[in-house]
């Protein structure tokens, strides 16, 4: 957890290049996985990943450069929603190419990084013991089910067809 505190705020040209290179690497790996797993043409999914990378890059850049204290996740979500909104001229282009990149291809690559990244916490995890594991499982299960059941009840009450 101490990792959370103390970060640098300066962003240089050099930093932006690091982001671009990382996004390029991520895109290439995802496109290869997307081709093997789902047989989508490489050229289409490369364009799709390019669109997603640009949105991400703009989002993280805006978070650091704009004076508002808003997380990049919000910027990225709003940009993605606006670009794909059916009334927008960009909608058809963005929706077509992004749909060529399966969500699961992105996630498979993403979680490979997560797996390696969480290795650091392994020792802390081992010392926590069974009690903490039981509670964690209960917390996740009840949050998930609580959310699903409430959503279901409201959906049925507001008459949304299955």
């Amino acid at each position, binding site marked *: 957890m101490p990792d959370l505190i103390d970060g640098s705020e300066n962003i240089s040209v050099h930093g932006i290049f690091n982001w671009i290179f990382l996004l390029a690497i991520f895109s290439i790996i995802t496109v290869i996985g997307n081709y093997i797993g789902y047989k989508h043409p490489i050229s289409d999914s490369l364009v799709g990943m390019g669109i997603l990378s640009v949105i991400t890059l703009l989002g993280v850049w805006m978070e650091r450069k704009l004076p508002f204290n808003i997380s990049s996740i919000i910027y990225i979500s709003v940009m993605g929603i606006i670009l794909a909104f059916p009334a927008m001229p960009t909608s058809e282009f963005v929706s077509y190419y992004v749909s060529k990149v399966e969500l699961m291809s992105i*996630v498979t690559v993403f*979680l490979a990084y997560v797996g390696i990244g969480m290795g650091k916490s392994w020792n802390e995890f081992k010392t*926590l013991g069974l*009690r903490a594991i039981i*509670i964690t499982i209960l917390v996740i299960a009840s949050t998930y089910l609580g959310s699903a059941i*409430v*959503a*279901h009840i409201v959906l049925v009450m507001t008459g949304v067809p299955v």
Partner: protein
Amino acid sequence: MGIISKKDNSTNEIQHIYRQKTDKRILKKNPWRDYRLHFTILVLVIIAMFIGPIEIEITKGVTVSIMPLLYTMVLGLVFYLAKSITWIERKQSRVAEGAMMLFIGILIAKLAVSSGQSMHLLFEMGPALMLQELGHLATILIALPVALLLGFKRETIGMTNSIGREPEVAVVVDKYGFNSPESRGIFALFIVGTMIGTIFISFLTSICVSVLPLHPFAFAMASGVGSASMNAASLGPTLAAFPALKTQIEAFAGFSNLLSFSVGIYIVIFLALPLTEKLYYLLEPKIGRKSVVNQEGDE
């Protein structure tokens, strides 16, 4: 007055977590130079994609599907822990974690594009989306009594108020202080959740979609309860179960995740934490056990 300043502090801190982690790892080094890390990940992804999803039928009608996303995550962890693999060490782990913070953006962007295409759904199903956030409070009623029975004291308040991802950790640390038992509780939840949460929610979802007769969109909304990786792991089995509703399910997961991130924090601050405290003081004298925390060692 007190409440207002508290609120401001915690939101500041929450929104800086991602930024600081990313900047620290990415801006100071050249993470793309670590080609062996990225090449290893490429190999993991290729292996996972070739194997594809595996479905295991536990009993009649109950299937657990294991998605490629779990193979890459578990293999990544195994590669880090394996002594014989010398090119994935602590340094690579830090680079991977920093890179991951940036790659969350790609995941969010993909969900947002699906959300944008299905914007009309938001207006039709807004009430369900908003109210399911309140469903998160179920954890307090179920997990808190068990934590007390297991012998946790004030750690319980940190452990059972919410699913305990980065934003909630920041809220609790801000409210109770870094070295408080409440914060120790949520750190424990955070670490265990990081290690097993993604795998667990994937299994939980695949069992739920085959057993519970709930609305497909309800599963989609519930998948957004936790972190981005948990969201993704939960979406896998949901998409596999309802392939015809792909875009809508992705859209709801995107909306729900956005909502957890923006509104969820305030639900934790103004509803979940006060409720957890109330229930703790109500139940602790009745079912609380002797504290176990000292025997397990303080941090």
